[in-house]
């Protein structure tokens, strides 16, 4: 997948987890949790969905890599490039 596609994947997952949030002007370098009402369970949902949909395992130690949209894409790109 390309960076753009990965971005879409992440935003799709978030849209499903938090249907009431407006994701249209999300800032890609600001932590999700500073701009959206995401609690730690919502965050885990992102991790769980990545595994279910794409077989990607994000170990606990790497959770902070998923803090912002940019850092998520950077972290996931090498792991999703062959999908």
């Amino acid at each position, binding site marked *: 997948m390309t960076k753009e596609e990965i971005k879409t994947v992440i935003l799709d997952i978030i849209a499903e987890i*938090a249907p009431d949030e407006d994701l249209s002007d999300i800032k890609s370098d600001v932590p999700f949790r500073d701009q959206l009402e995401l609690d730690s*369970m919502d965050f885990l949902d992102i991790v*769980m969905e990545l595994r279910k949909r794409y077989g990607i395992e994000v170990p606990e130690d790497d959770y902070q890599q998923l803090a912002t949209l940019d850092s998520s894409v950077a972290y996931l790109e090498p792991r999703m490039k062959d999908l």
Partner: protein
Amino acid sequence: MTDSLEGTKPQYDVVVIGSGLGGLTAANMLAKDGYSVLLLEHHHKLGGLATWFKRKGGHIFDVSLHGFPYGMVKTCRKYWTREMADCITQIKGIRFDNPQFSLTTTYDTNDFKRTMQDYFKVPADTVDSFVTTIKNMNFYDEHTMTTREMFDKFFPGRDDVVRFLLEPIAYANGSTLDDEAITYGIVFSNFLSRGVYIFRGGTDKIIGMMEAELKKNGVDIRTGARVEKIVVEGGKVAGVVANGKTIKARAVISNANVKATVQRLVGEEHFSKEFAEETRKVRLNNSSCQVYIGIRKGETIDYVGDLLFTSVADKLDAQMLRSRNITSRTYSFYYPDIRPGSDRYAIVASTNANYEDWAYLPEDEYRASKQDLIESTLDALERYVPGIRNKADYVEAATPKTFERYTLHPNGTSFGTKFEGLRVSMGLNEQVPGLFHTGSVGIIMSGWLGAANYGVIVANNADKYLRP
């Protein structure tokens, strides 16, 4: 008697033992993923501690519907149904009355900040930095500070503030000043985000909706089915024995207490010595006492708040919160609007309690102590509901023994285990492949929200294990 296991299949992908909110939610997630799931509950009702009971005279009592965080709305919507989420409503009258202060709050962030500044005169930046610290806690974080140390850091010498902060959480999950700060912080910040919520329609309604959803998703549900043993073969989970019948399964998720799962259901011999030892060291959380007060048909009570934390003790003391010499009580007031269409009122008084204080009493002393609990509760309630003895026409009490009998939880624990139990719960599958535990554990995974969310997390781990 009909055999409650008649017609079960010889084998399932997953057997879930126990129908608390953790077990129910795990069962639902796995069924939605397409697995065949058998849910076994020893009691005749689903729900575990999320339960209710009816009594003559049209009374209905909710046992653990005093309040949960807003997160439950999202949990219902994400893992159950939108319809369930839509029944959740806020209760706004959270009252405190004790020798140090008397106030009412909605317990959401804004009102909390206002109360801390205006009532307790804590500087705004201290309140802000406390709230920020708490909100940034994650359950997978490192945890070295105790709640006491955290409070000392932000509010040194303010035992009134500490009481305001801790008392509701001590009731919500049994955490004390000596537990890890995260066990306090996560639950507190869950509540603080938007205040306190309940399920309109009562516990019977949510559990009924969950049962319907499970059936729709194909879960085979059996009540009156007590699991005696989890079968391990070749070092892996192979099934369960329930009511004497062996049923095969590729994975088993136990919603029984985590210690009971290791020690009674599986047996220590199937674990490493270190793991068995670690499990033995896990401390159980406290149990509860409750007094259920039914108001006579036609009688009303004035609105005095929804949740009332009272104490006659000069200062907060976690040991005292559980003592049989009760000084602190939490009352939940149920007005007719909790069950739309009803015209009935009920009051449930709860206290934390020690199992040891109740378990070994001779029968007559046990009865007398229960009666004493009822009488002293009515006396204490008189102050808030004048004439309560004339308004009530039904009263009953529950003790740690009662909770033990209905849930099979060791020592009737209300909120699973202390923090260290979570590591054991999460480590089962590594010891015995195919073995999982969900439900109240480690303090943070307790309460309606914690147990249900942990059901999701564990279902995800079980799916990982089951997937080819």
